[in-house]
């Protein structure tokens, strides 16, 4: 089994004008998805990220503060899961609740450094 990270990219909820009802429904779907992964014993961790961004760029270490409105694709959070391969994670990612809002799931495998003894 390998470790994979599912990274969630897309618009911030705050900028989408969702109603309280929609927010509750989406929250319920996220909650159910998390539960499903937990029950399957594949969830290794995860977090949601606040939309404020401080960006440091270049040799001069130029600092800019950004909000979600200024960034087209903001990373909203991630989950760490164990799975056999990419196909298995792709299957897990079917339940991601925000595809209809233009959300994206990016799957990356966690690099394992082999221990040469």
């Amino acid at each position: 089994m390998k470790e994979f990270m599912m990274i969630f990219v897309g618009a911030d909820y705050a900028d989408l004008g969702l109603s309280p009802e929609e927010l509750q429904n989406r929250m319920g779907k996220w909650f159910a998805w998390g539960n499903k992964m937990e029950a399957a014993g594949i969830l290794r961790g995860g977090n949601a990220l606040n939309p404020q961004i401080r960006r440091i760029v270049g040799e001069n270490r130029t600092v800019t503060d950004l909000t979600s409105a200024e960034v087209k694709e903001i990373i909203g959070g991630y989950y760490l899961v164990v799975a056999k391969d990419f196909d298995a994670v792709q299957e897990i990612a079917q339940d991601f609740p925000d595809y209809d809002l233009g959300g994206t799931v990016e799957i990356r495998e966690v690099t394992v450094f082999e221990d040469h003894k």
Partner: protein
Amino acid sequence: MENKLIDHLFRYHSGKMVSVLTRIFGLSHLETIEDAVQDTFIKASVAWRQQQPENPEAWLTKAAKNRVLDIFRKLKAEKNLLPNLQQSRDFIAVNELFLDAEIEDAQLRMIFTACHPDLDPRDRISFALKTVSGFSIKEIASALLTKEETVKKRLFRARKTIQKGTIQFHIPQGKALPQRLESVMEVLYLIFNEGFHSNTQEQLIRKELCGEAMRLCQMLLKNELTRSSVVYALFALMCFHSARLEAKINSSNEILDLKQQDRSLWHFPLVQLGNTMMNKAVLDPEYSCYHYEAAIAAEHLRAEHFDDTNWTKILYWYECLYAMQPIPIHILTMAVVCLQSLDFDKAKHYLEQLEASDLEQRSYLYYGTLSDYYYATKNIEKAIEYLDLALQTVTNSLEKEHLQRKRITLTNSTLKRKS
């Protein structure tokens, strides 16, 4: 971990928080308050993805309170526009406003504000659905079958009127109360009817609107000041109507009239609740239009089959209703009732009192009824002639299909005769 949230918690809570915070900060800050409350739901929707708090409502309440205080602290740094909430006495008073009974009081104040006669009648529904019921602009637009732009304009206009400062955020007292209550009930009934008669494809939205109108009506009944026999009658009426909601549309989304409805789909617990409410409504011998409308709806529900309907009684209730509320649609309905009881002369008597223009956008109902009259009296040619007029004037697509199916039946019957 199971999902502990009750259905619509966020939406219901939105109305509660906006009302309480408006009571604290005043109607002039309504927009800031609505934004702040919305912020708390966004925050909750992310924070609760993995774990929900033990007491979700308390969490939301606290978050809303803090968020508004944050915003006002920021604003206060710029301008001095806020009562000083840090003074301990005020602070205790503010906390008390978040107790259940005070929340309900604040919500009633918001309902009376939203239904205030100073607001344009068309703006009241949108404003009530947004502020009291926590619907988004998009949801209001799809529920009322209007454009989002139109809803935005209505909300803007309502807010502008409110910001003039002449509307007080309170429950009216004394002589003003019955009249203001009437205006509230009118808006609630309109919201209910939007749900009950609307033909949006989404059954869910229809139910939501009906449910919301009933929830707000129950709020009026819960408070001693606003509880009255008329409100009981309105609530009974809503119960009777919504008992039939499931049966009104078949699986292919076609409207079914009373004759075609599968009566086993009627929801009897709602009928019983309606009866209980009706018993309370008639304790006061002075009846309202809602009393009569409820009596009519109850009479329909009493019949086990369509053929068992007591048309004489129904006609009597319509006469009472018309005496109190002389509008053309009641005359038309009385004609329909007479057609059902095969009293064609009387039906004609009613129809002759009307002209198509009396019914404005619903003139197709007038033509449709005339067509039914001529069909019943075996004048098929005239029946088709009027059905065509109905088809020319109908705008709603479901109604149109209904009429088209009728026309096919009519033409078939003439063909049979000729052959």
